[in-house]
């Protein structure tokens, strides 16, 4: 239930609501306050895992767990910070975490201090929210049940996107890109890329699109009927993958282009060291 309290239209800052301080799990609720603008969630920084989930509510709910070394004794931990005195817990904002809302955009800025502890984060937002995430040195990133447009960039970790219905633009420098789309909005371009890892994307069987696929060291597999465009002559062969399932394998150098279901907006699949797998749902 949302009740409108007379908050000014300025930037709302962090409203810290302490939950179980003992296990250092914190939860913050940030409302989206300007319904004339589309909802957006921006997350930057971070050193832990990040999960973003669409839910049937109105606010952004940010839950995070600090990876503190358990206070077995009173010695300072590796980061040089003091453990809390026996029997006490810390109150107040964690350093390096900044959450603001302006013009219906909630921005979570998680620049953990150099040498600081990692934070695992779970953020829930209404399903119809655009999500823009960029993490450095992060763990795995998971985004689920979002119907808005998704832009996700991870540095050292997987990007897993489930039950997406908007456009997806995803990248990891070092990690697998695993995407499953429930619905493909007509006319939206998408791109999935990684330097080290597989690009594994599942699309509805009736998707219309033009694929551009490139891997420098790896193979391309699909169970779609792809009408290849004749740039370099590709070799299309039927192979059985390790599960015994029949797949078509496309082998050639350079970028391969082809269309499914008559063609449509472009979808780019790029990896340097890894396979490309495009599944039909």
């Amino acid at each position, binding site marked *: *239930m*949302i*009740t*409108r309290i*007379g908050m000014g239209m300025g930037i709302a800052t962090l409203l810290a609501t302490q939950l179980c301080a003992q296990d250092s799990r914190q939860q913050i609720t940030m409302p989206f306050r300007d*319904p004339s603008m589309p*909802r957006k969630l921006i997350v930057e920084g971070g050193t832990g895992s990040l999960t973003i989930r669409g839910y*049937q509510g*109105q606010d952004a709910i940010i839950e995070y767990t600090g990876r503190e070394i358990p206070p077995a004794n009173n010695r300072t931990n590796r980061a040089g910070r003091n453990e809390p005195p026996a029997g006490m817990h810390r109150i107040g904002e964690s350093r390096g975490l900044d959450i603001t809302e302006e013009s219906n955009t909630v921005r979570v800025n998680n620049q953990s201090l150099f040498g600081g502890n990692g934070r695992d984060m779970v953020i829930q937002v*209404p*399903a*119809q929210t*655009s999500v823009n995430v960029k993490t450095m040195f992060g763990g795995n990133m998971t985004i689920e049940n979002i*119907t808005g*447009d998704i*832009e996700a*960039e991870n540095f050292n970790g997987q990007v897993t996107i489930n039950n997406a*219905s908007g*456009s997806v*633009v*995803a*990248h990891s*420098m070092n990690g697998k890109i695993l995407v499953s789309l429930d619905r493909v*909005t*007509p*006319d*939206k*371009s*998408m*791109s*999935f*890329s*990684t*330097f*080290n890892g597989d690009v594994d994307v599942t699309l509805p069987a009736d998707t219309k699109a033009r694929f551009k696929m490139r891997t*420098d060291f790896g193979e391309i597999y699909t169970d779609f009927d792809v009408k290849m465009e004749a740039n370099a002559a590709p070799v299309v062969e039927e192979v059985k993958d390790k599960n015994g399932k029949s797949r078509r394998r496309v082998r050639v150098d350079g*970028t391969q282009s082809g269309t499914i279901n008559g063609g*449509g*907006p*472009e979808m*780019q699949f*790029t*990896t*340097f*060291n890894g396979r490309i797998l495009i599944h039909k749902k």
Partner: protein
Amino acid sequence: MNCEQAKTQMLGENQGDDFAAHLASCDMCRSEASRIGALWQSLDLLPLDEPGGQVRERFYEMLGAYRQGMASAEPRKTRQLGQWGWQIAAAAALIAVGLALGYVVRGNGQPPAEVSQLREEVANMRQLVALSLMQQQSASERLKGVSWSYQVEPSDTEVLNALVTTVNHDPNVNVRLAAVDALRPFTGSPATHLAARNAVVQALPKETAPIVQVALIDFLAELKERNAAPELRRLVSDPDIDSGVRKRAEWALERMQ
């Protein structure tokens, strides 16, 4: 403030102190405000519908035809691009293949128009789409803008500049990657090939994402662009650079000998 007045303020933007005061003292209005407030908010949860792929093409077709002063600029009611759209598309295709076509017959039977006028219309339309899309806030739209750039004339310096800006400054890795590839057609046109080649050389030292670095290096190797050699050598010897990238830089230097 009475209940009647309060009701009209419940969904309003600036509710004011009077309203807050009334709510504090009136149970009925308070509960009503919270109920309809919740309903109001939840309307936002309904997913949004998206127009189909042809809407943009039809619009630009109409715009181009209008500028041309054609009587048949009336918007097409059919799914297909219609007779006029077919003619524009055909003319564009013929231009792309380099054929000179004398005339294109207009729908209303008047004397045919010059292909060069048509050519300009088509080019302007596509340029507009590409440029406007590349400035959009969402990465998906900017990607679309980059893919539209393949539709413009390779001599189009405005679009080339937009692509170069995208390669150098776009915050999204995927968009930069797509923009690098989109520069290729511009290296084939006498008007723009120097600017395009130079852009690739300049972009390499600034780029930090390995997947884009490799795309730039491959491009430079294809072009046999010797101006990039110093930067390539620097990459080979920089231990902070990913080993895959370094190997590719080495390979590129060899190819350029």
